[in-house]
């Protein structure tokens, strides 16, 4: 379609994967609520869990957004554990109270946790019952964000997948963008697609429940995030067809992602070039600035969000970095395929975790930059390794052309910082 960089002679598509099953140092899927509740402006997330779950949400949020947020935890107590029937009644009561106080809420997600799953509290049944009770104003859905089922971003996947069966049916030929993006980034994508002549574009999740997309056999969908495997499968079950592509990170990723969609919609090469030339050039320039710091440096990814493979592809191909190990909590072959094919052979691809062994590898590798979770960052910094907190990569706008430079800069900053600090005596 346009002057794409060639595929590497040997990509990572066939690289054997180091599978690990040991102690993991990752968030559970509840964490996704932090960004999902900001995206879906009339949704409330009610975790049915323990004090630990409430504490996790509070700690992961890092700051307390002190207007009452649109999430809360219904903390199970001794009595709820004793009688499940009563727990259902309690839940009804809490939900009724909540909805009475918050008439702005149109969608309520009951979010399962480890405790609610272990005691087999049936939240699907509760959601059905509560939907009947509060229809038509509020729709109640349920999904699991528990740590025994989901890792970090898989919570968003479970949330979106739970919405799919309830989406209205349509035969319209339309494109569905899948994944919760910051509004500003989503708007950029919509503007680009519109300039390409693709105007029938819907988003999952929608910002407000009135804009809930309809889907059907003429829907094609493009994932904006790599961690949406369940949603991918659920959409297919509804007859929608995926457009496989690398993830829209960096200039190259965005171009290939757009190109895959453009091909599907029969956009001419000229038009594609006309629409993308300027933002591509801008993105390249912006990336080049940060790439000066990154070029030739090595990077080691701890598993966290499943963004690791596409991000490594971006860092290697567009910023000139060398990847040593790319850890991912879960490798979805089909979704990660296009990114893996672009990634030149070399790095270890690991799936799952045994954190102590992985720390040993990271310390031995002493990469110039180690991308890891907040629990590991300072201990590694204290050993002289520069780190990038991975959680920032899901909280910050990093998709598409206009953020490509920011994305590169996120990785460059720890290195620039390390180079800048000179605390020894001058002598």
């Amino acid at each position: 379609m346009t002057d794409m960089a060639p595929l590497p002679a040997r990509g990572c598509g066939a690289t054997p994967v180091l599978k690990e099953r040991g102690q993991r140092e990752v968030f559970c899927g509840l964490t996704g609520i932090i960004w999902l509740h900001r995206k879906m402006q009339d949704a409330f997330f009610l975790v049915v869990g323990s004090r630990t779950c409430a504490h996790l949400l509070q700690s992961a949020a890092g700051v307390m957004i002190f207007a009452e947020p649109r999430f809360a935890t219904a903390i199970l107590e001794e009595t709820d554990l004793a009688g499940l029937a009563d727990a259902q009644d309690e839940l009804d009561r809490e939900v009724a109270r909540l909805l009475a106080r918050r008439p702005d809420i149109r969608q309520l997600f009951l979010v399962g946790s480890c405790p609610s799953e272990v005691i087999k509290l049936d939240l699907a049944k509760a959601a059905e019952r509560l939907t009947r009770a509060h229809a038509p104003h509020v729709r109640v859905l349920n999904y699991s964000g528990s740590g025994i089922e989901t890792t970090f971003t898989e919570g968003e996947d479970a949330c979106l997948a739970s919405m799919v069966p309830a989406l209205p049916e349509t035969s319209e030929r339309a494109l569905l963008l899948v994944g919760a993006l910051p509004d500003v980034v989503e708007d950029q994508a919509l503007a680009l697609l519109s300039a390409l002549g693709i105007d029938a574009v819907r988003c999952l999740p929608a910002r407000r429940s009135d804009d809930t997309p309809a889907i059907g056999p003429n829907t094609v969908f493009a994932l904006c995030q790599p961690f949406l495997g369940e949603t991918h499968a659920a959409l297919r079950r509804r007859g929608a067809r995926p457009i496989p592509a690398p993830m829209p990170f960096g200039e190259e990723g965005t171009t290939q992602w757009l190109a895959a969609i453009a091909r599907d919609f029969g956009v001419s090469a000229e038009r594609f070039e006309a629409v993308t030339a300027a933002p591509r050039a801008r993105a390249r320039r912006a990336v080049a600035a940060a790439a000066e710091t990154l070029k030739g440096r090595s990077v080691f990814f701890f598993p966290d969000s499943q963004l690791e493979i596409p991000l490594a592809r971006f860092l290697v191909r567009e910023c000139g970095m060398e990847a040593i190990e790319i850890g991912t909590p879960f490798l979805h072959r089909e979704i990660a395929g296009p990114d893996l094919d672009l990634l030149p052979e070399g790095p270890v691809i690991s799936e799952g975790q045994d954190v102590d062994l992985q720390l040993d590898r990271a310390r031995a590798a002493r990469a110039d930059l180690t991308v890891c979770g907040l629990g590991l960052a300072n201990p590694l910094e204290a050993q002289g390794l520069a780190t990038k907190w991975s959680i920032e990569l899901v909280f910050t706008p990093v998709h598409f052309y206009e953020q490509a430079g920011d994305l590169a800069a996120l990785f460059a900053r720890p290195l620039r910082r390390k180079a800048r600090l000179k605390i020894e005596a001058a002598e």
Partner: protein
Amino acid sequence: MKLSVWTYEGPPHVGAMRVATGMRGLHYVLHAPQGDTYADLLFTMIERREERPPVTYTTFQARDLGADTADLFRTACRDAVERFAPQAIIVGASCTAELIQDDPGGMAETMELDIPVIALELPSYQRKENFGADETFYQIVRHLARPMERTARVSCNILGPTGLGFRHRDDVAEITSLLADMGVEVNVTAPMGASPQDLTGLGRAHFNVLLYPETAEAAARWCEKELGQPFTRIVPIGVGATRDFVAEVRALAPAATAPSEEGLRLPWYSASVDSTYLTGKRVFLFGDATHVMAMARVARDEIGFDVVGLGCYNREFARPLRALAREYGVEAIVTDDYLEVEQTIEALAPEMIMGTQMERHIGKRLGIPCAVISAPVHVQDYPARYSPVMGFEGANVLFDTLVHPLVMGLEEHLLHMFRDDFEFHDAAGPSHHGGGAARAESAGGASPPGPPEDISGKMNGADALVWLEAAERELKKIPFFVRGKARRNTEAFAAQRGVQEISVDTLYEAKAHYAR
């Protein structure tokens, strides 16, 4: 089932982590799902720890349930002992593991490890973080400490400081040096900095200094009973309490001498004229009971504030707190529901809050300055500089802490004089004091919070009141940092009298009414 948004305390196993992380040579094997590892970041990020907490989480998954979660635990336990070579381990379950009833304690005990194995039973669905810390420390002490010969010179143990504590690092340093000044040696400080080996020597001390009752009272009581060590009841926060503490220590250790008060500045700073303006400022206190009770005394007796209300989130200490509140002639609130705390503050409309990071946020919303005096902690509560809140230097720190959020003395007058100056017009806002504009706080990162949402759902009582134009203009002349209060007072005054329209007269009548 209880709906909760923000919590003052984490689950009890986080309390156990605070003990383990504070100590050296101890490892915690925690039967828990992967998501519970978030707790590490509390220590590595908030406290900027350079090492991972010494915790191995089994991180069992759904597919392990019913099959081999017990095996997973044994493997994790064996691996941890091998890799970290601890002197002792504590083992326990998080809330989820408690439900699957694998009995980590029982399993670990049958593994024939050649180090002490201390099993923890922390009821996750009933108790909270402080209980978890207290119980954990008690269990460790009970397992390891034995009666033994006392040190030749008079010595004590310092009990209570943990990881993630409010100013524990500096409090310990301050009290250690105070005791040294009195000729009392510290035998062991624990949990913070102690190894299991050190704890076996607890019995050598002549008495115990209980710095943090929340986290070490059970251990102190056990030592009293089993090791014959009396312990101090007074927590040395503030000048008066520090002097009382000194007297208490001297009663326990007659050989101890009086410490120097040379560096103590609070009494003079409070007496100096600039502080006149602090007199009778209405303050509300909330936090853990120990800090609140001690700070109430500082606020009233050492700064000259009026205590208009106080409360704590840890029910375990409700009784002494209520007794103290009665003594201060105010109502005590004991709750872990921050919405309730917020309502109380709103109703009392204090001029300053002495609270936790939660109240700091509440204060921001309500436009009331807040000094942070208690956990739960935030990265800001770990200043790079030395800043204890205990002992004589702690008293100095407290003076600064309490005065800083208020617009001070002369400055307040100057602001009045220059109130029409462009620098002080509305939009200018205070340059660094938290008290002024109740702006929404930035959430950091990419998603700034939206406009504050109405959380109460109740009707604003002032809806029926009308401000006449002249009164509104007059109100605008009042400096921005007291305007909110003037508006609230006037409206409350008008409402009380059934006045519907607020005129300039109403404004000044209200001012006269509230003047003291």
